[in-house]
């Protein structure tokens, strides 16, 4: 038995336990570039974090992006899944096409959107002007930056959600749908009363996958704004990066990242709990 699980256990220890323990140790000591680990400081970093207005701001930004993106992507995903589930022509082609955005590296996509969003030469403002609207500053203004980042992520990940939903819909039993038609249910009624309840398990899985990604949101924002302008898109992850790698404030960065890790664990746990409670029973 041990010979079977041994290597996996060691890999698990090395890959997961070691970095986490390392980060915990790092967060409780003083760290300087010259000496590395220094004096034990206990929970002083935690206290500092609680008193740090920037931390609360970045937590708020992280959660705002998380909730709004998750809701949008799930709804759009459900809609796309519905469309695919109908008999449409060239479905395989459409499927492959939908997979594309999620296959491209976020950095490449971000660079592309950086061009589209350029207030002076970008396509986005050109199109707005074309229909008679005035252009937006997009990434250049604190009031529009989160929306602009959200659009990029929705564009990239909604199709993927659509494919997940579609796969789930294909696996559903046919009988309830036939019964619904026999009972004269409208397509709308069928969707809300039959499809959605049956689809719950797959929706929970999709939400779980996106949750972990969205809470750790980094690459897109790093390329698009690096947290700016005026820290309006400074998520917890970007803030920790800035503290650690730009301000050489590694211990505090470790504290921030552990907080993020805790947040991911709590939310993932909550989703799993809800799934067991509401989806598995169905």
């Amino acid at each position, binding site marked *: 038995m041990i010979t079977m699980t041994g290597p996996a256990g060691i890999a698990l220890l090395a890959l997961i336990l070691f*970095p986490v323990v390392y980060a915990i140790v790092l967060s409780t000591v003083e*760290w300087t570039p010259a000496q590395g680990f220094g004096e034990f400081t206990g929970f002083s970093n935690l206290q500092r974090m609680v008193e740090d207005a920037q931390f609360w701001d970045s937590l708020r930004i992280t959660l705002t992006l998380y909730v709004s993106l998750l809701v949008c992507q799930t709804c759009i995903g459900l809609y796309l899944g519905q469309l695919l589930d109908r008999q449409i022509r060239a479905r395989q082609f459409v499927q492959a096409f939908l997979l594309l955005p999620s296959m491209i590296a976020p950095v490449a996509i971000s660079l592309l959107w950086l061009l589209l969003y350029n207030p002076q030469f970008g396509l986005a403002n050109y199109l707005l002007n074309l229909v008679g609207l005035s252009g937006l500053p997009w990434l250049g203004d604190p009031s529009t930056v989160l929306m602009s980042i959200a659009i990029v992520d929705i564009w990239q990940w909604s199709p993927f959600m659509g494919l997940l939903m579609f796969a789930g819909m294909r696996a559903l039993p046919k009988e309830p749908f036939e019964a619904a038609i026999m009972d004269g249910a409208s397509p709308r009624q069928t969707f809300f009363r039959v499809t959605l309840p049956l689809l719950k398990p797959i929706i929970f899985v999709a939400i779980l996958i996106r949750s972990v990604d969205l809470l750790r949101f980094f690459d897109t924002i*790093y390329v698009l704004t690096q947290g700016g302008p005026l820290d309006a898109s400074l998520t917890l992850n970007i803030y920790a990066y800035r503290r650690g*790698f730009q301000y050489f404030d590694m211990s505090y960065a470790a504290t921030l990242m552990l907080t993020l890790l805790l947040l991911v664990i709590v939310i993932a746990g909550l989703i799993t709990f809800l799934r067991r409670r509401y989806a598995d029973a169905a």
Partner: protein
Amino acid sequence: MTVRPWWQTAACVAAAGMTLAACGGNGDSAADSGVADGEYEPSGTISLLAQKHPWTAAIEPYIPEFEEETGITVEVQTFAEEQARDRHLTQLQSGSTDFDVFMSLKSREGQMYADAGFYEPLDPWLEDTEATPDDWDRDDFKQAPWEGEAFNGEQLGLPIIVEGPVVFYRKDLFEEHGIERPKSQDELIDAAAAIEDATQDSVTGVTIRGLAPALPYTFGPFFHGTGLEWLDDDGAPNFDEPEAVEAIERYVALARDHGPEGVLNYSFTQSSQLFAQGHAGMSVESSNEISSVIDPEDSTVAEDVGVMPTPPGPGGQHPTVLQWGISMSPYSENQDAAWEFMKWATSPEMQLQLAMDGIASPRASTWESEEFQETLDRPALTEWAEALDVIQTDGHPEVAPPGENQPEIRQIIGDGVGQVIAGNMDAAEAAQQIQSELETVLG
């Protein structure tokens, strides 16, 4: 030559973010230099960790000549500026022998790295006549960049390029609309307004940095232009002086009232692009940007570019001046070969060669050279050289208040001025905020 794309590094950093596992303990200094043993034996392979920078692009084509001459192989690792910085910090912290020579911006990380022992002191090589023959001529370096590479009484780097903010402007627009070349910072604001009036707002008056961490570099001339220093005699920040509020107001008048939309994201890339596409009448940017605005392949206004120093404020003309340098890793296992490369890259001959490719030299002899003068065959280049002369003569070497934590100090100033640009605060409130935050960071 192994060049890892910067996004891979970004991805690694993102992954490492959870764990920060790259920050291991320190090794001891790897090798005693050959010079210290009394033998100078440069050979083998060295690795240069470089930023994506005009200097890197200019010197790379000449490296094969060095390799042929000396038999030393040079591997160049090039990264975008931030990624290169992440890399040398993590590698030096872990005592890695991954690179031997690295580009470093002393005005930013210099003090911190010097205190951490991340730069090998170069004095043993400089003092050894075999390692450094007289014709290398160390006295030829201008004082400001040479001393900018020294910390705690030791020479820790060699300067490779000097730069400072200048004003690029559209001569054709100025002539066509009868706009005078500004002689003061207030006239600079007037000129920006005049350009917008004359072109019915189809051309942005001026483009200037709004991106928080990059802003102090171009804000400095306005701050020092009031006659203020960053810190007073007691080492406390000077943002509580009324002149600081005036400096912010002047800067914001340019950036907000006559600057481009989305200016809060503007640094050199955005400004030069906007200016080179003919959408801005003036650009307050680094002298390094000369090539991107006068190269006809990149610029639609290449023939119409004029260059002037940032004009004086009421308290005089004090443009920011800084130098980039190359330093030796204390963990290099091939320090003699590293020195041989550093010496070659900064030699009078090489600096002259690079200067003719548009790299502003820290050596006096380059600027006096007739060969170099002859390459200034366009009015823009002549003006550029004149502006750099002003920068090197009157320039202020501090991009931001001196302190170990430069990135945070700069972010504080950039955020404060940015709040005024965004209309969230007035200049007095911003100055007050900057003052109190700087007091905390500077201790």
